[in-house]
Protein backbone atom coordinates (compact mmCIF):
# COMPACT_ATOMS: atom_id res chain seq x y z
CA UNK A 1 0.00 0.00 0.00
CA UNK A 2 1.49 3.31 -0.95
CA UNK A 3 1.70 6.11 1.57
CA UNK A 4 -0.35 8.40 -0.62
CA UNK A 5 -3.36 6.15 -1.08
CA UNK A 6 -3.99 5.58 2.60
CA UNK A 7 -4.91 8.83 4.33
CA UNK A 8 -4.21 7.34 7.74
CA UNK A 9 -0.64 6.64 6.71
CA UNK A 10 -0.02 9.93 5.00
CA UNK A 11 2.78 11.76 6.78
CA UNK A 12 1.31 15.06 5.58
CA UNK A 13 -1.34 14.70 8.27
CA UNK A 14 1.26 14.53 11.02
CA UNK A 15 1.14 16.75 14.06
CA UNK A 16 4.35 15.46 15.59
CA UNK A 17 6.71 17.80 13.73
CA UNK A 18 6.57 21.47 12.82
CA UNK A 19 5.67 22.18 9.17
CA UNK A 20 9.28 23.16 8.50
CA UNK A 21 10.71 19.94 9.86
CA UNK A 22 8.03 17.87 8.12
CA UNK A 23 8.93 19.54 4.82
CA UNK A 24 12.62 18.96 5.48
CA UNK A 25 11.95 15.27 6.10
CA UNK A 26 9.80 14.99 2.96
CA UNK A 27 12.85 16.08 1.00
CA UNK A 28 15.48 14.22 3.02
CA UNK A 29 14.06 10.76 2.30
CA UNK A 30 14.29 11.41 -1.45
CA UNK A 31 17.97 12.38 -1.45
CA UNK A 32 19.41 8.93 -0.79
CA UNK A 33 19.43 5.88 -3.04
CA UNK A 34 17.47 4.15 -0.25
CA UNK A 35 14.85 5.87 1.88
CA UNK A 36 16.09 4.23 5.06
CA UNK A 37 19.41 6.10 4.87
CA UNK A 38 17.58 9.18 6.14
CA UNK A 39 16.66 7.40 9.38
CA UNK A 40 19.50 8.48 11.68
CA UNK A 41 19.56 12.16 10.64
CA UNK A 42 15.75 12.23 10.95
CA UNK A 43 15.86 10.80 14.46
CA UNK A 44 18.45 13.34 15.53
CA UNK A 45 16.68 16.33 13.96
CA UNK A 46 13.33 15.18 15.39
CA UNK A 47 14.94 14.86 18.81
CA UNK A 48 16.33 18.38 18.50
CA UNK A 49 12.83 19.73 17.93
CA UNK A 50 10.70 17.48 20.16
CA UNK A 51 13.23 16.98 22.97
CA UNK A 52 13.41 13.20 22.78
CA UNK A 53 12.73 10.36 20.38
CA UNK A 54 9.49 9.51 22.15
CA UNK A 55 6.75 7.06 21.07
CA UNK A 56 5.08 9.59 18.75
CA UNK A 57 8.37 10.45 17.03
CA UNK A 58 9.20 6.77 16.59
CA UNK A 59 5.78 5.97 15.13
CA UNK A 60 5.87 8.91 12.75
CA UNK A 61 9.41 8.23 11.53
CA UNK A 62 8.71 4.51 11.08
CA UNK A 63 5.79 5.48 8.87
CA UNK A 64 7.77 8.00 6.86
CA UNK A 65 10.59 5.56 6.18
CA UNK A 66 8.35 2.57 5.73
CA UNK A 67 9.90 0.31 8.38
CA UNK A 68 8.55 -1.07 11.65
CA UNK A 69 8.72 0.79 14.95
CA UNK A 70 10.83 -2.06 16.26
CA UNK A 71 13.37 -1.40 13.52
CA UNK A 72 13.51 2.24 14.59
CA UNK A 73 13.90 1.37 18.28
CA UNK A 74 16.63 -1.09 17.39
CA UNK A 75 18.60 1.70 15.75
CA UNK A 76 17.94 4.23 18.52
CA UNK A 77 19.38 1.95 21.18
CA UNK A 78 22.70 1.84 19.32
CA UNK A 79 23.48 5.55 19.09
CA UNK A 80 24.62 7.42 22.19
CA UNK A 81 23.19 10.81 21.18
CA UNK A 82 19.64 9.47 20.81
CA UNK A 83 17.46 9.33 23.91
CA UNK A 84 13.82 8.38 24.45
CA UNK A 85 13.39 10.51 27.61
CA UNK A 86 13.90 14.27 27.55
CA UNK A 87 17.14 15.82 28.81
CA UNK A 88 17.41 19.16 30.51
CA UNK A 89 17.07 22.18 28.24
CA UNK A 90 20.85 22.44 28.32
CA UNK A 91 22.56 19.08 28.23
CA UNK A 92 26.05 19.43 29.70
CA UNK A 93 28.37 16.75 28.30
CA UNK A 94 31.73 16.57 30.04
CA UNK A 95 34.50 14.65 28.29
CA UNK A 96 36.74 12.66 30.63
CA UNK A 97 38.53 10.63 27.98
CA UNK A 98 42.33 10.47 28.01
CA UNK A 99 43.27 13.91 26.62
CA UNK A 100 40.68 15.68 28.76
CA UNK A 101 41.48 13.52 31.80
CA UNK A 102 45.13 14.63 31.61
CA UNK A 103 44.05 18.26 31.71
CA UNK A 104 41.40 18.09 34.41
CA UNK A 105 38.35 16.47 32.81
CA UNK A 106 37.52 14.46 35.94
CA UNK A 107 37.77 17.59 38.07
CA UNK A 108 35.53 19.37 35.57
CA UNK A 109 32.94 16.63 35.91
CA UNK A 110 33.12 16.81 39.72
CA UNK A 111 32.78 20.59 39.51
CA UNK A 112 29.69 20.35 37.31
CA UNK A 113 28.13 17.75 39.59
CA UNK A 114 28.73 20.04 42.53
CA UNK A 115 27.47 23.20 40.84
CA UNK A 116 24.37 21.59 39.34
CA UNK A 117 23.67 19.29 42.27
CA UNK A 118 23.10 16.35 39.95
CA UNK A 119 25.02 13.26 38.87
CA UNK A 120 25.77 11.49 35.59
CA UNK A 121 22.64 11.22 33.41
CA UNK A 122 20.54 13.26 35.85
CA UNK A 123 18.46 16.40 35.32
CA UNK A 124 18.00 19.39 37.64
CA UNK A 125 14.55 19.68 39.21
CA UNK A 126 13.74 22.79 37.15
CA UNK A 127 14.56 20.87 33.97
CA UNK A 128 17.15 23.44 32.93
CA UNK A 129 20.31 21.35 33.03
CA UNK A 130 21.18 17.71 32.64
CA UNK A 131 24.65 16.22 32.99
CA UNK A 132 26.46 13.41 31.26
CA UNK A 133 30.01 12.12 31.34
CA UNK A 134 30.81 11.45 27.69
CA UNK A 135 33.50 9.83 25.59
CA UNK A 136 35.88 11.78 23.33
CA UNK A 137 34.13 14.69 21.60
CA UNK A 138 37.02 15.55 19.27
CA UNK A 139 38.38 18.58 21.09
CA UNK A 140 41.49 16.91 22.50
CA UNK A 141 43.92 19.73 21.76
CA UNK A 142 41.66 22.20 23.56
CA UNK A 143 41.08 20.11 26.66
CA UNK A 144 39.35 20.01 28.99
CA UNK A 145 36.30 20.33 26.80
CA UNK A 146 32.57 20.29 27.38
CA UNK A 147 29.69 20.26 24.95
CA UNK A 148 26.42 21.91 25.94
CA UNK A 149 23.83 20.64 23.47
CA UNK A 150 25.87 21.05 20.26
CA UNK A 151 28.07 23.96 21.42
CA UNK A 152 31.72 23.32 22.24
CA UNK A 153 33.43 24.99 25.20
CA UNK A 154 37.16 24.40 25.38
CA UNK A 155 40.22 25.11 27.51
CA UNK A 156 37.97 25.18 30.54
CA UNK A 157 38.77 25.96 34.16
CA UNK A 158 36.24 25.73 37.01
CA UNK A 159 35.78 29.51 36.79
CA UNK A 160 35.22 29.43 33.03
CA UNK A 161 32.78 26.56 33.48
CA UNK A 162 30.80 28.62 35.99
CA UNK A 163 30.61 31.42 33.43
CA UNK A 164 29.45 28.95 30.77
CA UNK A 165 26.66 27.61 33.01
CA UNK A 166 25.68 31.16 33.94
CA UNK A 167 25.48 32.16 30.27
CA UNK A 168 22.94 29.39 29.69
CA UNK A 169 20.94 30.45 32.74
CA UNK A 170 20.87 33.99 31.31
CA UNK A 171 19.84 32.64 27.94
CA UNK A 172 16.89 30.88 29.54
CA UNK A 173 15.74 33.87 31.63
CA UNK A 174 16.07 36.11 28.56
CA UNK A 175 13.65 33.98 26.58
Amino acid at each position, binding site marked *: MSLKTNPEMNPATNTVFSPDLAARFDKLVTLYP*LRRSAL*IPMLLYAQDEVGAVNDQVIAEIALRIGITELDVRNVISY*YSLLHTKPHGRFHVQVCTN*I*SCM*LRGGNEMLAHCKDRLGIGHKETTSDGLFSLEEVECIGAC*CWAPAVQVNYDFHDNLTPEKMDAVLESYRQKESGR
Partner: protein
Amino acid sequence: MPELVSHPEEVKVISRRFGMGAADIDRYMALGGYASLRKAVDMGPEWVLNEMKASGLRGRGGAGFPTGMKWSFVPKQSAKPKYVLVNGDESEPGTCKDHLIFREDPHSVIEGTMIAGLAIGSKMGFIYLRGEYRYLLEITERALAQCYERGILGKSIFGSSFAFDVLSHTGAGAYEVGEESALMESLEGKRGVPRIKPPFPAVVGLYGGPTVINNAETIASVPFILEMGGAEYAKIGTERNGGTRLFSISGHVNRPGVYELPMGYNLKKMIYEVAGGIPGGKALKAVVPGGASCPILRADEIDVGMDFDQMGKAGTMLGSAGVVVLDETVSIVEFALRTIKFYQHESCGWCIPCREGTDWLKKTMTRFYEGYGTVKDIDNMRYLAENMLGRTFCPLGDAAAMPMIGFFTKFRGEFEEYIQKNPAAPETQALVELVGA
Protein backbone atom coordinates in the same frame (compact mmCIF):
# COMPACT_ATOMS: atom_id res chain seq x y z
CA MET B 1 36.48 28.22 19.71
CA PRO B 2 39.51 26.00 19.20
CA GLU B 3 42.60 28.04 18.49
CA LEU B 4 44.83 27.55 15.49
CA VAL B 5 48.49 27.10 16.28
CA SER B 6 51.56 27.51 14.15
CA HIS B 7 55.21 26.56 14.27
CA PRO B 8 58.10 27.30 11.86
CA GLU B 9 58.80 23.56 11.50
CA GLU B 10 55.40 23.01 9.96
CA VAL B 11 54.98 22.22 6.27
CA LYS B 12 51.55 23.58 5.50
CA VAL B 13 49.91 21.65 2.70
CA ILE B 14 46.38 20.76 3.73
CA SER B 15 46.36 23.36 6.48
CA ARG B 16 47.51 26.03 4.04
CA ARG B 17 44.10 27.71 3.94
CA PHE B 18 43.38 27.38 7.68
CA GLY B 19 42.46 30.69 9.25
CA MET B 20 41.79 32.32 5.87
CA GLY B 21 38.02 32.05 5.72
CA ALA B 22 38.19 29.34 3.06
CA ALA B 23 34.85 27.86 4.18
CA ASP B 24 33.41 30.44 1.80
CA ILE B 25 33.59 29.35 -1.80
CA ASP B 26 34.79 32.69 -3.23
CA ARG B 27 37.66 32.79 -0.79
CA TYR B 28 38.41 29.13 -1.46
CA MET B 29 38.56 29.71 -5.19
CA ALA B 30 40.63 32.86 -4.79
CA LEU B 31 43.09 30.70 -2.85
CA GLY B 32 43.37 28.24 -5.73
CA GLY B 33 40.43 26.01 -4.85
CA TYR B 34 38.69 23.80 -7.44
CA ALA B 35 41.62 24.23 -9.84
CA SER B 36 42.64 20.62 -9.15
CA LEU B 37 39.14 19.41 -9.93
CA ARG B 38 39.23 21.29 -13.23
CA LYS B 39 42.60 19.76 -14.01
CA ALA B 40 41.29 16.29 -13.11
CA VAL B 41 38.27 16.75 -15.37
CA ASP B 42 40.60 17.78 -18.23
CA MET B 43 43.18 15.05 -17.69
CA GLY B 44 40.86 12.16 -16.87
CA PRO B 45 40.69 9.28 -14.37
CA GLU B 46 43.88 7.47 -15.40
CA TRP B 47 45.97 10.56 -14.79
CA VAL B 48 44.38 11.06 -11.37
CA LEU B 49 45.04 7.44 -10.37
CA ASN B 50 48.66 7.68 -11.49
CA GLU B 51 49.24 10.91 -9.56
CA MET B 52 47.64 9.40 -6.46
CA LYS B 53 49.80 6.31 -6.68
CA ALA B 54 52.92 8.44 -7.19
CA SER B 55 52.07 10.56 -4.14
CA GLY B 56 52.58 7.68 -1.72
CA LEU B 57 49.55 8.92 0.20
CA ARG B 58 48.42 6.37 2.77
CA GLY B 59 45.08 6.38 4.57
CA ARG B 60 44.98 8.95 7.33
CA GLY B 61 42.28 7.17 9.31
CA GLY B 62 44.87 4.89 10.84
CA ALA B 63 45.32 1.76 8.75
CA GLY B 64 47.70 3.49 6.34
CA PHE B 65 46.55 1.68 3.21
CA PRO B 66 47.85 3.32 -0.01
CA THR B 67 45.03 5.50 -1.30
CA GLY B 68 45.84 5.27 -5.00
CA MET B 69 45.86 1.49 -4.79
CA LYS B 70 42.54 1.46 -2.92
CA TRP B 71 40.95 3.53 -5.67
CA SER B 72 42.35 1.29 -8.38
CA PHE B 73 40.65 -1.78 -6.81
CA VAL B 74 37.25 -0.41 -7.82
CA PRO B 75 36.10 -2.28 -10.94
CA LYS B 76 35.78 -0.11 -14.03
CA GLN B 77 32.54 -1.74 -15.10
CA SER B 78 29.84 -2.17 -12.50
CA ALA B 79 26.15 -3.02 -12.81
CA LYS B 80 25.49 -1.16 -9.56
CA PRO B 81 26.27 2.52 -8.97
CA LYS B 82 29.65 3.30 -7.40
CA TYR B 83 30.03 5.59 -4.41
CA VAL B 84 32.59 7.69 -2.56
CA LEU B 85 32.18 7.77 1.20
CA VAL B 86 34.13 10.23 3.33
CA ASN B 87 34.69 9.19 6.91
CA GLY B 88 34.33 12.22 9.16
CA ASP B 89 33.23 10.19 12.16
CA GLU B 90 36.41 11.29 13.93
CA SER B 91 36.18 9.66 17.37
CA GLU B 92 39.61 8.23 18.19
CA PRO B 93 40.55 9.67 21.59
CA GLY B 94 43.38 12.14 21.13
CA THR B 95 42.40 13.09 17.58
CA CYS B 96 40.77 16.36 16.52
CA LYS B 97 42.31 17.10 13.10
CA ASP B 98 39.18 16.52 11.00
CA HIS B 99 37.39 18.94 13.33
CA LEU B 100 39.70 21.68 12.03
CA ILE B 101 39.57 20.56 8.38
CA PHE B 102 35.78 20.83 8.31
CA ARG B 103 35.80 24.13 10.15
CA GLU B 104 38.58 25.79 8.19
CA ASP B 105 38.54 24.19 4.75
CA PRO B 106 35.40 22.12 4.05
CA HIS B 107 35.70 22.73 0.30
CA SER B 108 38.95 20.78 0.19
CA VAL B 109 36.97 17.74 1.37
CA ILE B 110 34.25 18.36 -1.22
CA GLU B 111 36.81 18.83 -3.99
CA GLY B 112 38.67 15.68 -2.94
CA THR B 113 35.43 13.72 -2.90
CA MET B 114 34.63 14.83 -6.43
CA ILE B 115 38.10 13.94 -7.69
CA ALA B 116 37.82 10.50 -6.09
CA GLY B 117 34.44 10.13 -7.79
CA LEU B 118 35.90 11.08 -11.14
CA ALA B 119 38.76 8.62 -10.69
CA ILE B 120 36.57 5.61 -9.94
CA GLY B 121 33.65 6.50 -12.21
CA SER B 122 31.15 7.36 -9.48
CA LYS B 123 28.32 9.89 -9.60
CA MET B 124 27.65 10.29 -5.92
CA GLY B 125 29.60 10.93 -2.73
CA PHE B 126 28.68 11.12 0.93
CA ILE B 127 30.38 13.06 3.68
CA TYR B 128 29.57 11.38 6.99
CA LEU B 129 30.18 13.55 10.07
CA ARG B 130 29.85 12.40 13.64
CA GLY B 131 26.67 13.64 15.34
CA GLU B 132 28.59 15.75 17.86
CA TYR B 133 30.03 17.85 15.01
CA ARG B 134 26.73 19.61 14.29
CA TYR B 135 28.30 23.02 13.70
CA LEU B 136 30.74 21.44 11.27
CA LEU B 137 27.86 19.72 9.47
CA GLU B 138 26.23 23.13 9.06
CA ILE B 139 29.46 24.61 7.67
CA THR B 140 29.71 21.67 5.24
CA GLU B 141 26.06 22.02 4.20
CA ARG B 142 26.60 25.71 3.42
CA ALA B 143 29.70 24.85 1.41
CA LEU B 144 27.78 22.22 -0.57
CA ALA B 145 24.92 24.64 -1.25
CA GLN B 146 27.45 27.14 -2.61
CA CYS B 147 28.86 24.47 -4.91
CA TYR B 148 25.42 23.76 -6.34
CA GLU B 149 24.76 27.49 -6.81
CA ARG B 150 28.00 27.82 -8.80
CA GLY B 151 27.43 24.68 -10.82
CA ILE B 152 30.54 23.04 -9.36
CA LEU B 153 28.35 20.18 -8.19
CA GLY B 154 25.57 18.76 -10.32
CA LYS B 155 25.49 18.04 -14.03
CA SER B 156 28.16 18.80 -16.66
CA ILE B 157 30.80 20.08 -14.26
CA PHE B 158 33.09 22.61 -15.98
CA GLY B 159 31.16 21.96 -19.18
CA SER B 160 32.26 18.32 -19.26
CA SER B 161 30.22 15.13 -19.17
CA PHE B 162 31.22 14.63 -15.54
CA ALA B 163 28.23 14.79 -13.17
CA PHE B 164 28.51 14.44 -9.44
CA ASP B 165 26.41 14.90 -6.31
CA VAL B 166 27.64 15.13 -2.73
CA LEU B 167 25.41 14.67 0.28
CA SER B 168 26.42 15.47 3.84
CA HIS B 169 25.16 13.13 6.53
CA THR B 170 25.13 13.15 10.32
CA GLY B 171 25.78 10.25 12.63
CA ALA B 172 24.32 10.13 16.14
CA GLY B 173 27.16 9.13 18.44
CA ALA B 174 29.17 5.94 17.92
CA TYR B 175 32.94 5.36 17.79
CA GLU B 176 32.41 2.03 16.07
CA VAL B 177 30.89 3.74 13.04
CA GLY B 178 34.37 5.04 12.21
CA GLU B 179 35.16 1.51 11.00
CA GLU B 180 34.45 1.45 7.28
CA SER B 181 31.93 -1.39 7.11
CA ALA B 182 30.06 -0.16 10.18
CA LEU B 183 30.08 3.28 8.57
CA MET B 184 28.26 1.89 5.54
CA GLU B 185 25.71 0.14 7.76
CA SER B 186 25.11 3.40 9.60
CA LEU B 187 24.70 5.35 6.38
CA GLU B 188 22.15 2.79 5.30
CA GLY B 189 20.13 3.65 8.41
CA LYS B 190 21.07 0.68 10.55
CA ARG B 191 22.95 -0.12 13.75
CA GLY B 192 26.64 0.38 13.09
CA VAL B 193 27.80 -3.20 13.28
CA PRO B 194 30.65 -4.33 11.04
CA ARG B 195 30.36 -6.49 7.93
CA ILE B 196 32.56 -9.49 7.29
CA LYS B 197 35.38 -8.98 4.75
CA PRO B 198 35.80 -10.01 1.99
CA PRO B 199 34.04 -8.77 -0.01
CA PHE B 200 35.83 -5.48 0.43
CA PRO B 201 33.93 -2.20 -0.03
CA ALA B 202 35.77 -1.53 -3.30
CA VAL B 203 33.80 -4.46 -4.74
CA VAL B 204 30.64 -4.65 -2.62
CA GLY B 205 30.09 -1.54 -0.53
CA LEU B 206 27.40 1.00 0.06
CA TYR B 207 23.98 -0.20 -1.22
CA GLY B 208 25.90 -3.16 -2.65
CA GLY B 209 27.83 -1.00 -5.10
CA PRO B 210 31.63 -0.60 -5.33
CA THR B 211 32.64 2.05 -2.80
CA VAL B 212 35.76 3.99 -1.95
CA ILE B 213 35.88 4.92 1.74
CA ASN B 214 38.50 7.41 2.84
CA ASN B 215 39.20 9.41 5.94
CA ALA B 216 38.42 13.13 5.71
CA GLU B 217 42.11 14.07 5.96
CA THR B 218 42.99 11.64 3.15
CA ILE B 219 40.32 13.12 0.91
CA ALA B 220 41.29 16.70 1.81
CA SER B 221 44.86 15.91 0.70
CA VAL B 222 43.77 14.96 -2.81
CA PRO B 223 43.37 18.45 -4.36
CA PHE B 224 46.76 19.48 -3.00
CA ILE B 225 48.41 16.36 -4.43
CA LEU B 226 47.04 17.05 -7.91
CA GLU B 227 48.05 20.68 -7.58
CA MET B 228 51.69 20.01 -6.74
CA GLY B 229 51.94 16.64 -8.50
CA GLY B 230 52.12 13.24 -6.85
CA ALA B 231 55.91 12.95 -7.11
CA GLU B 232 56.45 16.33 -5.42
CA TYR B 233 54.05 15.42 -2.64
CA ALA B 234 55.84 12.14 -2.03
CA LYS B 235 59.15 14.00 -1.58
CA ILE B 236 57.82 15.80 1.53
CA GLY B 237 57.60 12.62 3.55
CA THR B 238 59.76 9.56 4.03
CA GLU B 239 60.07 6.50 1.84
CA ARG B 240 56.68 4.84 1.22
CA ASN B 241 55.12 7.49 3.48
CA GLY B 242 54.31 10.41 1.24
CA GLY B 243 53.36 13.89 2.31
CA THR B 244 52.41 15.56 5.53
CA ARG B 245 50.23 14.62 8.42
CA LEU B 246 48.03 16.62 10.77
CA PHE B 247 49.28 15.71 14.24
CA SER B 248 46.87 16.42 17.09
CA ILE B 249 49.14 16.97 20.08
CA SER B 250 47.32 16.92 23.40
CA GLY B 251 47.86 16.21 27.08
CA HIS B 252 50.83 17.51 29.02
CA VAL B 253 52.50 19.89 26.56
CA ASN B 254 52.87 23.66 26.71
CA ARG B 255 51.37 24.30 23.27
CA PRO B 256 48.78 21.64 22.46
CA GLY B 257 47.26 21.90 19.01
CA VAL B 258 46.99 20.48 15.52
CA TYR B 259 50.30 20.81 13.64
CA GLU B 260 51.00 19.81 10.06
CA LEU B 261 54.39 18.15 9.84
CA PRO B 262 56.12 15.96 7.27
CA MET B 263 55.59 12.21 7.62
CA GLY B 264 58.49 10.74 9.56
CA TYR B 265 58.97 13.80 11.78
CA ASN B 266 60.80 12.95 14.99
CA LEU B 267 58.44 12.41 17.92
CA LYS B 268 60.81 13.81 20.52
CA LYS B 269 61.25 17.00 18.52
CA MET B 270 57.51 17.19 18.05
CA ILE B 271 56.91 17.16 21.79
CA TYR B 272 59.81 19.31 22.95
CA GLU B 273 60.15 21.82 20.12
CA VAL B 274 56.88 22.03 18.21
CA ALA B 275 54.55 21.59 21.17
CA GLY B 276 56.85 23.45 23.55
CA GLY B 277 57.75 20.67 25.98
CA ILE B 278 56.19 19.57 29.25
CA PRO B 279 54.61 22.21 31.50
CA GLY B 280 56.11 22.98 34.89
CA GLY B 281 59.49 21.49 33.98
CA LYS B 282 58.12 18.01 34.72
CA ALA B 283 59.65 14.89 33.24
CA LEU B 284 58.03 12.95 30.42
CA LYS B 285 56.62 9.58 31.38
CA ALA B 286 55.08 8.19 28.21
CA VAL B 287 53.42 9.01 24.90
CA VAL B 288 50.44 7.47 23.14
CA PRO B 289 51.60 8.21 19.59
CA GLY B 290 48.57 7.77 17.36
CA GLY B 291 45.31 7.88 19.29
CA ALA B 292 44.06 5.72 22.16
CA SER B 293 44.31 2.43 20.28
CA CYS B 294 48.06 2.67 19.71
CA PRO B 295 50.40 0.97 22.22
CA ILE B 296 52.12 3.42 24.54
CA LEU B 297 55.79 4.41 24.23
CA ARG B 298 57.98 5.02 27.27
CA ALA B 299 59.92 8.27 27.55
CA ASP B 300 63.10 6.48 26.44
CA GLU B 301 61.45 5.22 23.24
CA ILE B 302 60.38 8.49 21.65
CA ASP B 303 63.44 9.28 19.54
CA VAL B 304 61.67 7.85 16.52
CA GLY B 305 60.22 9.07 13.23
CA MET B 306 56.46 9.39 12.96
CA ASP B 307 55.51 7.42 9.88
CA PHE B 308 53.61 4.17 9.46
CA ASP B 309 56.69 1.98 9.04
CA GLN B 310 58.93 3.44 11.74
CA MET B 311 56.07 3.35 14.23
CA GLY B 312 55.46 -0.27 13.33
CA LYS B 313 59.11 -1.07 13.96
CA ALA B 314 58.84 0.67 17.33
CA GLY B 315 56.08 -1.78 18.25
CA THR B 316 53.25 0.68 17.99
CA MET B 317 51.24 2.47 15.27
CA LEU B 318 50.93 5.91 13.73
CA GLY B 319 47.15 5.47 13.80
CA SER B 320 45.23 8.70 13.49
CA ALA B 321 48.30 10.73 14.60
CA GLY B 322 46.76 11.78 17.89
CA VAL B 323 49.81 12.31 20.08
CA VAL B 324 48.84 12.16 23.76
CA VAL B 325 51.63 13.21 26.10
CA LEU B 326 51.80 11.99 29.70
CA ASP B 327 54.05 13.63 32.31
CA GLU B 328 55.60 11.88 35.31
CA THR B 329 52.56 12.48 37.54
CA VAL B 330 50.22 10.26 35.52
CA SER B 331 49.20 6.91 36.97
CA ILE B 332 49.35 4.34 34.19
CA VAL B 333 46.84 2.22 36.11
CA GLU B 334 44.31 5.06 36.04
CA PHE B 335 45.14 5.80 32.40
CA ALA B 336 44.67 2.14 31.45
CA LEU B 337 41.33 2.03 33.26
CA ARG B 338 40.10 5.12 31.39
CA THR B 339 41.25 3.64 28.09
CA ILE B 340 39.43 0.33 28.57
CA LYS B 341 36.31 2.07 29.90
CA PHE B 342 36.13 3.82 26.55
CA TYR B 343 36.43 0.65 24.48
CA GLN B 344 33.97 -1.22 26.66
CA HIS B 345 31.48 1.62 26.15
CA GLU B 346 32.03 1.69 22.41
CA SER B 347 32.16 -2.03 21.59
CA CYS B 348 29.09 -2.63 19.47
CA GLY B 349 28.61 -6.13 20.88
CA TRP B 350 28.56 -7.89 17.54
CA CYS B 351 31.66 -10.06 18.06
CA ILE B 352 31.94 -11.97 21.33
CA PRO B 353 35.73 -11.63 21.84
CA CYS B 354 35.38 -7.84 21.77
CA ARG B 355 32.11 -7.56 23.68
CA GLU B 356 33.18 -9.92 26.47
CA GLY B 357 36.87 -9.06 26.31
CA THR B 358 36.41 -5.32 26.79
CA ASP B 359 33.86 -5.94 29.53
CA TRP B 360 36.06 -8.29 31.54
CA LEU B 361 39.08 -6.07 31.06
CA LYS B 362 37.08 -3.13 32.39
CA LYS B 363 35.71 -5.10 35.33
CA THR B 364 39.14 -6.42 36.27
CA MET B 365 40.81 -3.03 35.78
CA THR B 366 38.15 -1.35 37.92
CA ARG B 367 38.72 -3.84 40.74
CA PHE B 368 42.47 -3.45 40.31
CA TYR B 369 42.22 0.34 40.46
CA GLU B 370 40.11 0.13 43.59
CA GLY B 371 42.94 -1.70 45.29
CA TYR B 372 41.74 -5.28 45.07
CA GLY B 373 44.24 -6.31 42.40
CA THR B 374 46.61 -9.25 42.44
CA VAL B 375 49.65 -10.10 40.33
CA LYS B 376 47.60 -12.85 38.72
CA ASP B 377 45.18 -10.17 37.47
CA ILE B 378 47.94 -8.57 35.40
CA ASP B 379 48.74 -11.90 33.76
CA ASN B 380 45.07 -12.70 33.24
CA MET B 381 44.29 -9.34 31.67
CA ARG B 382 47.24 -9.63 29.37
CA TYR B 383 46.25 -13.16 28.36
CA LEU B 384 42.68 -12.00 27.77
CA ALA B 385 43.78 -9.04 25.65
CA GLU B 386 46.13 -11.18 23.58
CA ASN B 387 43.29 -13.56 22.81
CA MET B 388 41.10 -10.77 21.46
CA LEU B 389 43.62 -9.93 18.73
CA GLY B 390 42.47 -10.74 15.22
CA ARG B 391 39.31 -12.52 16.37
CA THR B 392 36.71 -9.91 15.48
CA PHE B 393 35.01 -8.66 12.30
CA CYS B 394 36.42 -5.16 12.71
CA PRO B 395 39.54 -3.76 14.37
CA LEU B 396 37.77 -2.41 17.48
CA GLY B 397 38.70 -5.56 19.37
CA ASP B 398 42.35 -5.07 18.39
CA ALA B 399 42.11 -1.36 19.17
CA ALA B 400 41.05 -2.20 22.71
CA ALA B 401 43.51 -5.04 23.24
CA MET B 402 46.67 -3.48 21.80
CA PRO B 403 46.99 -0.49 24.15
CA MET B 404 46.20 -2.72 27.14
CA ILE B 405 48.94 -5.17 26.15
CA GLY B 406 51.21 -2.13 25.83
CA PHE B 407 50.43 -0.92 29.36
CA PHE B 408 50.99 -4.36 30.88
CA THR B 409 54.24 -4.87 28.96
CA LYS B 410 55.83 -1.45 29.27
CA PHE B 411 54.65 -0.60 32.77
CA ARG B 412 54.29 -3.96 34.47
CA GLY B 413 56.41 -2.72 37.35
CA GLU B 414 53.97 0.07 38.01
CA PHE B 415 51.03 -2.32 38.12
CA GLU B 416 52.88 -4.53 40.61
CA GLU B 417 53.85 -1.51 42.68
CA TYR B 418 50.23 -0.36 42.63
CA ILE B 419 49.16 -3.56 44.38
CA GLN B 420 51.73 -2.95 47.12
CA LYS B 421 50.98 0.74 47.54
CA ASN B 422 47.21 0.53 47.49
CA PRO B 423 46.18 -2.23 49.85
CA ALA B 424 42.55 -1.24 49.85
CA ALA B 425 41.50 -4.79 50.57
CA PRO B 426 39.67 -4.90 53.88
CA GLU B 427 41.43 -6.60 56.73
CA THR B 428 40.79 -10.27 56.69
CA GLN B 429 37.97 -11.28 58.93
CA ALA B 430 37.74 -14.72 60.36
CA LEU B 431 34.91 -16.70 58.87
CA VAL B 432 34.35 -18.49 62.16
CA GLU B 433 35.15 -17.20 65.63
CA LEU B 434 36.79 -19.98 67.53
CA VAL B 435 35.22 -20.27 70.95
CA GLY B 436 37.73 -19.98 73.70
CA ALA B 437 40.65 -19.49 71.31
